[in-house]
């Protein structure tokens, strides 16, 4: 049995099921990260002293990562736009670029983490590092999750393009919405943890 409105729009809502689903999911993600940011504010406000981000963290490296992640959002949009123009080959290139940029982000993050561990800076060292590792760790998991989904659409999932291109385009769009959200979380994380 086929579920209606996976591809075609429902007339009175003007939406597909997937579009509503992904926005609801993002709403719950806002609450997840919102709670963590609120905890950060509460703990920082209650602390007698709080280190500036650059005491422990590498700002140039994080700036590089910010650029990487924003670029990946651009390639993500280009991937989706290629599908809208019915250019599958270009989609493959841009989607591949998005995945690679995500990978670059995680590799940079890995070097940041291992450098901290090498210096004897752990989540248990102080509350600044605790919130730093928790927030960036959770964000890293989201980046990884987004990469898995994107890789699926780049590889095996792209078979759907041949049978149902509209549906495939919708799915890439939803994956893109998630990717932009992950990007947006970083845009908040970067100044909060590194600069303030």
């Amino acid at each position: 049995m086929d579920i209606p409105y996976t591809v075609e729009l429902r007339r009175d809502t003007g939406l597909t099921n997937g579009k509503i689903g992904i926005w609801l999911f993002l709403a719950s993600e806002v609450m997840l990260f919102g709670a963590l940011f609120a905890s950060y504010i509460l703990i920082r406000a209650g602390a007698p002293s709080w280190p500036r981000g650059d005491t422990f963290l590498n700002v140039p490296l994080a700036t590089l990562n910010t650029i990487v992640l924003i670029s990946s959002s651009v390639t993500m949009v280009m991937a989706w736009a290629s599908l809208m123009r019915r250019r599958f080959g270009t989609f493959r290139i841009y989607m591949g670029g998005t995945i690679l940029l995500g990978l670059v982000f995680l590799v940079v993050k890995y070097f940041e983490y291992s450098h901290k561990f090498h210096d004897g800076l752990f989540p248990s060292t102080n509350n600044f590092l605790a919130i730093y590792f928790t927030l960036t760790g959770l964000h890293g998991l989201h980046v990884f999750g987004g990469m898995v989904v994107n890789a699926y659409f780049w590889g095996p999932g792209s078979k759907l393009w041949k049978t149902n291109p509209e549906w495939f385009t919708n799915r890439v769009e939803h994956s893109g919405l998630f990717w932009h959200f992950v990007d947006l979380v970083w845009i908040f994380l970067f100044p909060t943890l590194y600069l303030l």
Partner: protein
Amino acid sequence: MTQPAAVAPPKSHAAHEAHHEELGFWRKYVFSTDHKVIGIQYAVTGLLFLLFGFSLIMLLRWQLAYPEAALPLFGTLLGEARMPGGVMLPEFYNELGAMHGTIMVFLGVVPLAVGGFGNFVLPLQIGAPDMAFPRINMVSYQAFFLGGVTMLTSFFVPGGAAQSGWTSYTPLADIATTGQTMWLIGMVFLITSSLLGAINFITTTIQLRAKGLAFMRFPFFVWAQFVTAFLLLLAFPPLEAAATMQLMDRLAGTSFFLPSGLVVSGQVLQVAGGGNPLLWQHLFWFLAHPEVYVLILPGMGIVAEIIANNTRKPLWGYRSMVYSLVFLGFMSFIVWAHHMFMTGMGTAMAAFFQTTTMIISIPSVVILTALIISLWGGSIRFNTPMLFAVAFLPMFGIGGLTGLPLGLNVADIPLHDTWYVIAHFHYVVAPGTLFALFAGLYYWFPKATGRKMNETLGKIHFFGSLVFMNVVFMPMFIVGLAGVSRRLFDGGAIYAFAQPVLHWNVVSSWGAWMLAIFQIPFIFNFFWSIWKGEKTDENPWQATTIEWSAPSPPPHGNFLVAPEAYRGPYEYSVPGATKDFMLQCEARDQAVAAPV
């Protein structure tokens, strides 16, 4: 009847049906994507967990009634680590209390009310062929199941299951035994399950409702599930964040919830410190207060359906009920700190939250009043579902009214953490929500199986449960008003002030054990009726909502013809009509004809 354009052409539909027949046992009953099978999976698992959680508390009630006495029969079976010589250790008392709460709320009531009834009834009531995301639905059940398994496994790890209360307050929970880590991991699974479920419910309600089914034509049950889904969607993630931080505290040695200079067993804890124990409480109750409404709203939805059906009358004040429900949903996010009056968070905070708490009682009263007025002038059929639904009203009323003193800062201080609190919220959830859920089970059982449950056994179950629910919980008000704390593992036996009320603990405990005996007719009835119950047609209660136009049990895809809604949900006893109910999906000119 015209078909909406969205319905698949008959040919491919038939082809798919043929394909469906090939599904093996595993795909059909275990890894099913059909919302009805998933709903039943949720409901049965939820019922089993309710029974298990109830067993835990029956054990605990022995200790409260007869502290320091050896429990006959079962006492020695539970091992020297928990009950040496059959006498309960305080640690085991804590374990039972914490896990009773966790299991009843997260593994019993919510899965049954939302996962079970929501999954099974909601798509049928809105005339949908299935949930919007069937595979996500399946994953949601699997995540719930894994969460349940994790919680059960935690009883066997060193130190036993979680002992820090179902609220897992820090810093105690941060330094508790391994069981607490299992509790947190289990919760992450349960939260994931709820999130996936909530996304599915909201999308399904918005997108897959039948043609003509405007929001104000929704049965009240659909509204209740819809609002509940928003609460689950937005309130659970902060607990996930909190659980992550508590896991970090326990596993990575962080100090989110550990203040500086914390002394444990006479020694200063070697941690970075600087954390905030109250932060956990804020994050926990930010979930757990909306969670209270997650527990009660589906119950109200079920009761509304059954009352309209058995009074043969439209609900009184349907619109006000819906507006109240939505308002309740919004307000439930800004009342959480009324659980925290004792924490010293300050009078300004307390004043704010006591005000919002008083405001939120208004919509609850509106809904309850509308349901009571709905009874007025009806020719009421007292079948088993209706008995449970009617009993819900005063029982929930008691629960609600006794909550008012707890919502006021000054009155809460002497009552906080006493048995009064336990009595209050159990009146809301046990004879309240559970009665509604029983009502729903008896009411929708014919839709799921094509057979009715036995009425006589149902009435024995009802009257026994009604009497003994009150025997269990009414004495707790007395014990609580005397000031006895729920955390005392001997029920207050060593305190002089508790002596005049101690005998009520015995009454309460015997009430619980008798209540268990009166669940036996239900359990027997449930299984017996699946195979031997009285066969029924698709609409045994002469109800109006769309699910009753589908065959019983509904086939894969639910409806033979995609239904279309022509009117509101409760068109009972319409003047001039040939019968006293009109199905929502029945065109007016077909009123006399046999249902589709």
